[in-house]
């Protein structure tokens, strides 16, 4: 490689990486698609029936807090008056009015969830007065002054009050391991304790009660457990106040000082869900859907605030243009792979970019179906060519007839796909057929001129490179990275300069000239 080529390649790679680094380090653009493991759209639908009496429906509303960001809220009131009441930072939705027949009310929000992990306190901190008052003392629901509670705590031989983490752990372990879970079991703390078994709510209530009894302020939290493809489930857990923060812990969900990313807290402090007054009947349910970022949100996230970088961000383009460009930006990667195969390995293929084109043609279908389709279409084409050979047609009309046959073949695939409800075959309609016609022609010329063996060998090398290129063109991560960081094309160009300047042996040279290894001596490169 010449110095100039080495340097040019180096500069290109460096420039590309520099811009890439600037965007990812300074402006913290995500290197991998940030999709958004934790974005959900949650809908709550309430049906309430009444016979003319006035009343209200109340539902706990989630707020933005640790581990969750709530936004994009909307509601449907269906003839009722909708208000949101905020009390101690906790929100309640209230629909009120005269219930007349069935009212369908709805409330929806989007939430970005993250797993949270809270450090355990190393020393006791006196809780502020309002927390101690609200969550420290006994209530009807959490009778922490009951003698059974005191007896249980005494039997636990808790660590001293200066070690709140140790106390939390002992109490948590007791409720998690010594109180069984029964569906439909007791919701009451003391009954759960007496039975050594309770419902999720009962165990949570017992945990809160015991914690308060041990001098640690604690509260229950009502939340939703979100799972892809399943209806969200209301689930309770507890939070203990220690070291200045609320520490989530759940004997039922089996987490301690952390909260997994599939939980959204609806209301801290109370386990009361949706309730109604003055209604004959009420039913409600939650629905949740994993969501992706909308393109404008993605753009807002991916366009760096710097003026120069902004100017070169492809996310500023209209969505339609973006989707075309997304395909295009993956092509340099394909070209790089072809260059590696051709110039470093030495694989002979039909045409230079034929593998990229074929891979591109097949990017909408899974690889095995794609290859089967190529084989079928080539088979059809070669058969057609053999038949046409007898008619002695001139080249251009013959190629055009081949094209017609391929079009019919692709149409047959579509029909077949439709018949068997295999959409993969159906998408084959978009198969860029000219590419395949070219492939057929090259293949059949190779058969005629160099024999079936060579032709098949070359065809399999072409398909090999196609298969190597194919995942890159299909991979959403590669597409995202190339589209978000077009400067990486400079790096690819740099690598291509290096490959282009590489004058050493190809892998296939080693195979072809391997018999030199058995020859004695050698004049050497004098």
């Amino acid at each position, binding site marked *: 490689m010449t110095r100039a080529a080495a340097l040019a390649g180096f500069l290109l790679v460096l420039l590309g990486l520099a811009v890439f680094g600037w965007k990812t380090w300074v402006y913290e653009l995500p290197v991998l698609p940030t999709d958004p493991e934790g974005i959900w759209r949650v809908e709550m639908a309430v049906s309430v029936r009444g016979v003319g009496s006035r009343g209200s429906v109340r539902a706990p509303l989630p707020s933005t807090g640790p581990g969750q960001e709530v936004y994009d809220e909307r509601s449907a009131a269906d003839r009722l008056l909708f208000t949101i009441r905020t009390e101690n930072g906790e929100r309640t939705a209230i629909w009120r009015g005269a219930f007349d027949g069935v009212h369908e009310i709805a409330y929806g929000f989007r939430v970005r969830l993250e797993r949270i992990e809270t450090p355990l306190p190393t020393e006791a901190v006196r809780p502020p007065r309002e927390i101690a008052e609200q969550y420290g003392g006994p209530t009807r629901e959490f009778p922490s002054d009951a003698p059974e509670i005191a007896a249980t705590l005494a039997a636990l031989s808790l660590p001293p009050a200066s070690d709140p983490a140790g106390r939390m752990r002992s109490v948590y372990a007791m409720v998690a391991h010594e109180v069984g879970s029964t569906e439909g079991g007791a919701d009451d703390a003391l009954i759960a304790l007496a039975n050594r078994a309770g419902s999720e709510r009962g165990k949570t209530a017992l945990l809160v009660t015991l914690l308060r009894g041990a001098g640690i302020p604690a509260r229950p939290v009502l939340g939703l457990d979100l799972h892809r493809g399943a209806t969200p489930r209301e689930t309770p857990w507890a939070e203990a106040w220690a070291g200045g923060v609320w520490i989530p812990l759940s004997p039922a969900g089996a987490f301690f000082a952390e909260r997994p990313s599939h939980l959204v807290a609806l209301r801290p402090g109370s386990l009361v869900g949706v309730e109604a007054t003055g209604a004959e009947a009420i039913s409600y349910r939650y629905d949740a859907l994993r969501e992706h970022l909308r393109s404008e949100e993605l753009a807002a996230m991916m366009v760096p605030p710097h003026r120069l970088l902004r100017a070169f961000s492809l996310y500023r383009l209209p969505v339609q243009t973006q989707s075309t460009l997304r395909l295009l930006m993956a092509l340099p990667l394909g070209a790089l792979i072809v260059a590696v195969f051709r110039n470093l390995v030495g694989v002979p293929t039909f045409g230079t970019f034929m593998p990229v084109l074929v891979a591109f043609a097949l990017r909408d279908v899974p690889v095995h179906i794609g290859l089967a389709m190529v084989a079928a279409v080539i088979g059809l084409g070669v058969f057609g060519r053999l038949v046409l050979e007898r008619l002695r047609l001139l080249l251009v009309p013959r190629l055009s007839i081949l094209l017609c046959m391929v079009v019919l073949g692709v149409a047959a695939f579509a029909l077949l796909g439709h018949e068997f409800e295999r959409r993969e075959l159906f998408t084959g309609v978009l198969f860029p057929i000219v590419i395949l016609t070219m492939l057929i022609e090259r293949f059949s010329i190779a058969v005629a001129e160099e024999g079936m063996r060579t032709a098949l060998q070359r065809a399999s090398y072409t398909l090999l490179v196609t298969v190597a290129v194919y995942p890159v063109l299909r991979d959403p991560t590669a597409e995202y990275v190339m589209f978000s960081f077009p400067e990486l094309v400079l790096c690819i160009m740099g690598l291509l300069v290096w490959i282009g300047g590489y*004058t050493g*042996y*190809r892998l296939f040279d080693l195979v*072809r*000239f391997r018999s*030199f290894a058995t020859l004695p001596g*050698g*004049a050497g490169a*004098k």
Partner: protein
Amino acid sequence: MTTPLQILRALRRHGVLGINHRNAGYTLRWNPRSKYPTVDDKLLTKELCARAGIPTPKLLAFARVHFEIRKLREAIRDLDSFVLKPARGAMGNGILVVRGRDGDRYRVAGGRLLALEDLSYHAAGIISGLYALAGQSDVALVEERLEVHPEFAAITTEGVPDVRIIVFRGVPVMAMTRLPTRRSGGRANLHQGAVAAGIDLATGATTHAIQQSQPITHHPDTNEPLIGRVVPGFGVMLELAVRAADETGLGYVGADIVADAHHGPVLLEMNARPGLMIQLANHAGLLPRLRAIERGHREGRSVEQRIAEACAIAHACRP
């Protein structure tokens, strides 16, 4: 079992030229793109050789467009033996060798009998660019058929053997003869199974032989020894190769020459991207010789001086 690393070391030791190095250091560097047409188009090569007095197979007829095929048919109506080929074909593709007649039908190499219609169809395919390097429209040529020199008869069953001489900056580098076999279907194409034998530049005698990259000592069809045969008229061939290379203006070029039974050495074609198998046939790498030629390069030397230098360099670079 030889490891890739051992092979790599052996290739370096022997100075074997790889494809990347050939392209970057020789064909790209020494062959200006503008000179390619004269060697890629055999009609142009022929004209060039005619001007320089270099013998080539006699051109009997040609057709540039489809309606000229009529003219071509007139020309071959009474011929018993000729070659129909594309002006811009690569690797011997699209060449039809007619060796005799059977009444109205033409007997082609390989034993098939073809009618005049078939030949016209083939010519039409050529004109449409079916066999051209880049698929562009082409010219169909009819040339006299060369005949195997008696010296080669024992090691030729089908087709016509040729001699490939690589010339670098006006100095012959390495030579081999390519012998068609039954396996290669009568074509002098090494990838299809033709035999290649390396030639000592000074004596014109064959030194080593290979088929499909494997060393052999006897012809696979006739079982005649392949080593130590002197190529008839090899000295003239070297001279033709050097003069033709000078005419084309290409710095790194392969000249394909046939020893014809009647006319002696005849230049068949020139190749601006000569292959690398010649190294296997000679059991020698090209690099040491190419570097020696580069070092000793001086302008204005006679053809004889350069051939003498080639022999000296080949001798010095023996393993």
